[in-house]
């Protein structure tokens, strides 16, 4: 296969549907068959060439995704799950495909839709200053 790209294009314009399918397949392969990583990476590089996608940028985003996945598997916290979903988007994996990766869901749920600001004390609150992982108002910045 001939490779002609200068690898300097950014990924801001997105990836074709074919490319998105391939990236998804690549991520599945890395998760399920990590022994084939080198071969899969080579194929990914060649697809990027054909599709005018910046391989180095995509590879950087994918590396972040796999590192986050490793961190998530140790904790299963919802906040990391959200970061993982967001990082998947940076790798052209939309929510639908992300769900197909069958990553184990987070082991507890928040936030909830309850009250507005300016209210008085509520006994429903079961968290304290010792809790680890909660980002209050994360939804306000898309997390």
């Amino acid at each position, binding site marked *: 296969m001939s490779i002609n790209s200068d690898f300097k294009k950014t990924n801001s314009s997105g990836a074709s549907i074919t490319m998105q399918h391939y990236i998804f397949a690549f991520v599945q392969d890395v998760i399920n068959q990590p022994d084939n990583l080198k071969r899969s990476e080579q194929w990914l590089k060649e697809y990027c060439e054909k599709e005018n996608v910046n391989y180095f940028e995509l590879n950087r985003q994918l590396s*972040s995704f796999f*590192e*986050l996945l490793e*961190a998530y598997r140790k904790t299963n916290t919802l*906040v*990391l799950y959200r*970061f993982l979903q*967001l*990082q998947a988007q940076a790798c052209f994996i939309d929510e639908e495909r992300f769900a197909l990766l069958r990553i184990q869901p987070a082991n507890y749920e*928040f*936030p*909830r*839709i*309850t*009250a*507005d*600001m*300016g*209210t*008085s*004390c*509520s*006994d*429903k*609150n*079961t*968290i*304290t*200053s*010792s*809790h*680890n*992982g*909660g*980002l*209050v*108002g*994360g*939804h*306000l*910045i*898309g*997390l």
Partner: protein
Amino acid sequence: MQQPAIPAFHVLWTKPVTTGGKHFSMNNAEILTMVVSALMWQKHNGSIKLYTDKAGYAFIRSRKLSALWDGGIDTELLENNNYPIDPEIFWAAGKLIALEAQACPCVMLDTDLIVTLPIQHLLKPTTITALHSEALQPEVYLPPSLLKKPSGFSFPDDYNWNTLPSNTAFLYIRDKSFKSFYLNESKRFMFRNMEKPTEMVSQMVFAEQRLLSICADRQHLSINYLLSDPFSLSNSSVIHLWGFKHLLRQNENVRAIYSKQLIEKFGEVLSAYPLFIPYDEKYM
């Protein structure tokens, strides 16, 4: 009708870190949060001042952030304070020392908390407003018998130990009389209270968060809260790193994604602050 501004203050007290022999630092995500916190308060709610010490000021200067606080920077108060307080046990005491010096009404704002909207109209009718209440989890909020106490200290009989503590990452106090009462009770507990606990949470959250609620209850004052549930999707005004700070410190990828989201959301206010450019270049 436009509400009058309410002055706020940030506190960067490095003594708890430097006393243990460590070098004080903040990661880029924490710095960015502090920058947005200060700029958003100025945009919507009033002026903001920083209380810090020499090491904190050196850090601020090294990051070229000295102009961030329109109310100025005070380095004398915390640097010269000689209260008999163990900074490792009472790591947030710097906030209370600054609160003591600040005129009322005022808002004590943690550097990891961003208020995204005007909220003066919510604060003005109240005597005390904190961020949200907290559950009385016994491993965090110890029963009085398990708290370490200074020699000769006893808790007043009329303390209501069933009152829910208040998260003070945001704290508005209108009147000096309540502020003095609360801070005197807190100092009475913290002063010469040097026995190290097995963990470093319970003593501090009692002195700052539980005592606030107990003192309000004792003076028959109600505490209002900005949030009835911190993780409600109805929250439209507050971003608080809270326990998420630990994750930010551990994971560079999380720092990068969080910073990118913050910059996307607050790009407009940040772009007015020229020293933000290095963060923009790094994360966008």
